[in-house]
């Protein structure tokens, strides 16, 4: 009887713990990752304050969309935030993952972004991103690969009607910089 009482008392905290664990495991892809932007090394022109804010907002949205797309094997989240070659490649990646029965979960711990090129006409910006990512490749719930790494990316963003979209996103070895 006493054991039953203890079990009943333990149920609510257990549900809370399970909920938190579920959110941590499954909910992280829905969170916008933090993006810190530096424009000290940008050429040939300075980046306006409003553009900096827009780049941080939209680059973060793009990573959020990428993480959601890769964990759910859905191409829909990519369409608003990516364009051009980046959209083509990431769409193919999602389709291939789906075909191979895999999915990728990225726990995104944030991005330190350095703007390195901003075109004279303000239509394109190139970013060098140091991303802290925990990557898991899964088959169903089986983890086939897991790593925690700082990965360098080069991203080219171009202005669209109401936002900046990622046109190129390419991981590069750290030795390249």
């Amino acid at each position, binding site marked *: 009887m006493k054991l039953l009482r203890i079990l009943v008392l333990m149920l609510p905290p257990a549900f809370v713990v399970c909920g938190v664990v579920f959110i941590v495991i499954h909910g992280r892809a829905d969170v916008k990752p933090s993006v810190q932007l530096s424009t000290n090394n940008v050429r*040939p022109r300075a980046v306006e304050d409003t553009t900096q804010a827009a780049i941080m907002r939209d680059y973060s949205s793009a990573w959020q969309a990428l993480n959601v797309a890769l964990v759910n094997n859905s191409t829909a989240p990519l369409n608003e935030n990516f364009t051009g*070659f980046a959209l*083509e*490649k*990431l769409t*193919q*990646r999602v389709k*291939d*993952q789906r*075909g*191979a029965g*895999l999915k*990728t979960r990225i726990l995104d711990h944030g991005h330190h972004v350095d703007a*390195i*090129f901003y*075109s*004279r*006409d303000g*239509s*394109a910006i*190139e970013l*060098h991103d140091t991303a802290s990512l925990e*990557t898991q*490749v899964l*088959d169903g719930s089986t983890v*086939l*690969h897991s*790593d925690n*790494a700082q*990965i360098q990316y*080069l991203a*080219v963003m171009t202005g669209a009607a109401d936002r900046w979209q990622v046109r*190129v*996103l*390419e*991981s*590069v*070895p750290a030795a*390249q910089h």
Partner: protein
Amino acid sequence: MRKLLLYAAFILTCWFAADSARGAELRLPENATAGQPMTVGTSGQGDAVLYLVGPGQVIKHNIKLGGNVQIKGEELHSAGRWIAIVRSGSNPQSQAFWVKPAQPESLSFLAKPSRVPVAQHNAISGTVFLFDKFRNLVIQPEPVSFNLAVNGAGATQSITSHEGVAWIDASSGPKEGAAQFVASVGSTTVRRVVQQVASEPCSGSLRMHVAQHEKDMIVVQTDPIRDCSGNPVPDGTIVSFIETDKSGKSTVDARIKKGFAQAELPASSEATISVASGVTLGNELHLGAGQ
């Protein structure tokens, strides 16, 4: 004796466990390149599945462990960080590796503006992003040649790309016309046209005279209007004629037509007429009684 056998059994168990864990070890190339064939070495025995998870694609092969797996060049498109996974039984092995972009084969060339006045310092900007044939950004430095010319006369500048981008600021030439703005890397060339148009009228060339003088009307007409490089200012450019007399000021905005602009102003016994276009002031005419 029994202890010795126990130790031996323990060592054998550990050895077996270590060997099993090493069963699907991966050997990956250090310098894989997009579009080039690649060999993945495996150890162990039995059947397995090899997954290559790349930035823009996933490759899956059923393999036999213990041999080399050939990945064809046409399979490997994406440059960047890949993850190779060998799955046999319940013990997948994985490793990250890098694939470099291939040689540049296409350029994304942004040339701005499409129309520019002649003889303007650094008024034209050219930006090139370099891609290989698989649309990977080519990050290794490459010499990019920019040439801006009208009727074959112009200048060439070579810029080394950095992080996949090369850019220049160029001045427009002295002659109007369709300037060919060409960016080249190796044998790949992309051409844009920048229309160079006459600049603002030159103050020396903005001169007018009285073409007709009637009882109640004066017709004033300019000489052919040119910019300071001698190019005719395009038709449609606005020229303002201002007549000032004791009754006040009359202004007529006329467009250049066939190189000239002209206006009809009210006749006045004594007036000053000035002409201007944009920020350029021309000559003044002083009309007195009897003129």
